[in-house]
């Protein structure tokens, strides 16, 4: 048994069986009987008790299997949820239990729900409550925050695979697709949208983005209207455009990080242009995000939404028209209509447009060709040159082909929003498809790896690529879980590595890793949502943006 400082907080007491809400009756652990708490005690005591929720059977031979899930975003959480469901549905008489340990690099769970979902979409973050129930209701599953898998100083992937019966990688995408244009990485003021979003959402690793954005948007006593060009037309691009257009005024009651408000400015940015290579029928955004842009002005954010009718006409090729008639085209048809209405509305008001009106332009059939340095500062971007494209090809496979006609967009800041990209943890390279940024898998199972050392699986963006909405992870996680269960059912529970949790704890203690438990995270949560920490009453929370401050709030501060 382990007895160290961590033990008190995160104890792994195998001799005490705390029953979960879902298991019925009470469990005999050999030493004592613990009656099921109806719906759990306090957060504190909940998280201080750990155990085998399903202990040995009468013969003492069915051992719980151990599962480590790397990443606690939507894909990790839904995988855990459906794994628990799958175990609940199995006949309980002879089944061994399951221990799930969810490992998270940050002290806080929820991944992109916390650091990706736009601050003005609080309702989308309601899913955090569902995920929180995982940790609250069940002692079979534990949150291990501040544990960066893949670092030798913490725990390597191989060590994890040796410790656990099943390892599920659900750590998503920590990199970006690149345009591959000269200046993209060297000119200041060109930032990936992924980094920009992480920064305004208060991610502790992205503070440095603020310096670059601040420089670009010129908090330099220069009152010229600022221009931001966003390259790419997914929902991330539209989120960025909306946040920039709303400005501090329109976002102060959200959970956007305070550090970003003075930089994006009280009124936001005057000119935001979102460009995409293909036409409006091929855009990757969904209608909710588009509609929000059309309503910016009506909802008091003072930003006119501009769509050019002639670009919509250019995009409506015969092949595009066919795309609108295909099965499942309903979302595209509705987007087309909304854009047509918006284009008509924006051309009707052309006369009233003045230079000082904020505007968000959604521009199509424009392919970025060149970043031009700024006249004032040759180390920084000043403009983006785009080439007019035309669509060629079959319906559903149309490509944007250059026409030679160029258009130059002034840009103080460029956000590149052409997609996230997964990267392999050390030790994962051989099963990684570097081109697509995903782990090679079949139904979530990494076949060769599993054959070599035991169950390795993958869920979410690392499995299917960076697309879809939170809900997409439901089907995705179920798919992976089906295959995990298949393999577990075929294996002998006698061979289960049921002491994985204790061994991992021991390893992390040896290496001086300060693990943030679920109850520790509750302390971070309490601080972030406390009236004295928030900037307005209406704000749901003010995120702590410094890692040290998070650990201190969690009560696990480094010495």
């Amino acid at each position: 048994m382990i007895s160290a400082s961590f033990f008190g907080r995160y104890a792994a007491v195998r001799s005490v069986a705390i029953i979960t809400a879902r298991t019925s009756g009470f469990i005999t652990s050999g030493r004592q009987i613990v009656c099921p708490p109806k719906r759990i005690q306090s957060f504190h005591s909940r998280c201080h008790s750990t155990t085998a929720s399903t202990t040995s059977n009468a013969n003492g031979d069915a051992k719980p299997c151990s599962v480590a899930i790397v990443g606690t975003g939507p894909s990790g959480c839904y995988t855990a949820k459906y794994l628990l469901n799958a175990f609940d549905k199995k006949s309980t008489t002879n089944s061994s239990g399951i221990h799930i340990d969810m490992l998270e690099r940050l002290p806080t769970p929820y991944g992109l729900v916390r650091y990706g979902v736009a601050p003005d979409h609080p309702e989308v973050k309601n899913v955090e409550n569902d995920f929180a129930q995982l940790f609250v209701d069940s002692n079979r599953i534990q949150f291990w925050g501040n544990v960066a898998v893949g670092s030798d100083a913490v725990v390597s992937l191989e060590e994890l695979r040796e410790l656990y019966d099943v390892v599920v990688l659900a750590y998503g995408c920590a990199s970006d697709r690149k345009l591959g244009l000269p200046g993209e990485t060297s000119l200041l003021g060109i930032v990936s949208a992924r980094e920009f979003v992480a920064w305004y959402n208060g991610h502790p690793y992205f503070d440095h983005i603020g310096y670059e954005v601040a420089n670009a948007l010129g908090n330099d006593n220069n009152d010229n209207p600022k221009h931001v060009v966003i390259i790419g037309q997914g929902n991330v691009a539209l989120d960025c455009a909306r946040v920039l257009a709303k400005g501090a005024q329109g976002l102060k009651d959200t959970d956007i990080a305070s550090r970003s408000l003075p930089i994006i400015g009280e009124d936001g940015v005057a000119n935001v242009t979102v460009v995409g290579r293909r036409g409006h029928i091929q855009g990757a955004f969904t209608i909710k995000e588009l509609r929000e842009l059309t309503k910016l002005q009506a909802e008091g954010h003072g930003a006119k939404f501009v769509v050019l009718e002639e670009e919509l006409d250019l995009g409506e090729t015969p092949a595009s028209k066919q795309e609108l008639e295909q099965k499942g085209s309903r979302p595209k048809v509705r987007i087309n209509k909304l854009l047509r209405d918006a284009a008509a509305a924006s051309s009707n008001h052309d006369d009233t447009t003045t230079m000082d009106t904020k505007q968000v332009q959604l521009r199509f059939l424009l392919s970025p060709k060149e970043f031009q340095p700024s006249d004032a500062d040759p180390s920084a971007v000043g403009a983006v040159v785009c080439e007019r494209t035309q669509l060629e090809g079959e319906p559903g496979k149309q490509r944007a082909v250059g026409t030679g006609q160029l258009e130059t967009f002034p840009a103080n800041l460029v956000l590149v929003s052409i997609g996230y990209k997964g990267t392999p943890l050390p030790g994962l390279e051989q099963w990684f498809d570097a081109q697509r940024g995903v782990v090679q898998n079949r139904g979530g199972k990494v076949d060769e790896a599993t054959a070599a050392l035991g169950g390795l699986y993958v869920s979410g963006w690392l499995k299917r690529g960076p697309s879809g909405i939170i809900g997409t992870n439901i089907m995705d996680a179920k798919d992976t879980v089906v295959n995990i269960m298949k393999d577990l059912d075929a294996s002998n529970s006698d061979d289960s590595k049921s002491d994985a949790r204790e061994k991992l704890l021991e390893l992390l203690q040896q290496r001086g890793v300060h693990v943030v438990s679920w109850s520790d995270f509750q302390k971070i949560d309490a601080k972030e949502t406390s009236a004295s920490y928030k900037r307005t009453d209406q704000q749901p929370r003010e995120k702590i943006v410094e890692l040290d401050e998070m650990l201190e709030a969690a009560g696990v501060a480094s010495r």
Partner: protein
Amino acid sequence: MFSRSRQSLPLIYSAASKRLLKRSPCVGSAIGSIRHHGGPSVSTNAPTVTVHFLQPDGETVKSVPARVGESLLQTAHRNDIDLEGACEGVCACSTCHLILPQDVYDNQEEPSEDEEDMLDMAYGLTDTSRLGCQIMVSEEMDGIQFEMPKATRNFYVDGHVPKPH
């Protein structure tokens, strides 16, 4: 893993940010309040009808009591039906998507623009699709079967390629 190569830029926004970061004292805010599932609060004494949920496997039917006046999402959650409600029933996701029989669909009020927008993102959308959080149980629904979108088991194994986003 993350580029920190551009960190040496001057800290030119610190004064402004410090002003903003000086948080105003606020009192009386709802601290850590958890929002519960959206939808009407229906008495446990409300009359009930029996509704059926055709499961994603396309075969199994689960029959459960539904309280008149509650949403179908609430019915599902009270009865352990595996219908997700990621946004907690506030019409901000598409995870509680259900397929209604044509006549029941026709008897409903038109879906709101918000619901239509969410339905656009629903997996396996049909002409009679609605969100479970937006459909309220009525007396006339006794005996009605609602269909959950079909799960395609191992759809990646079967060669399904998700559309790029």
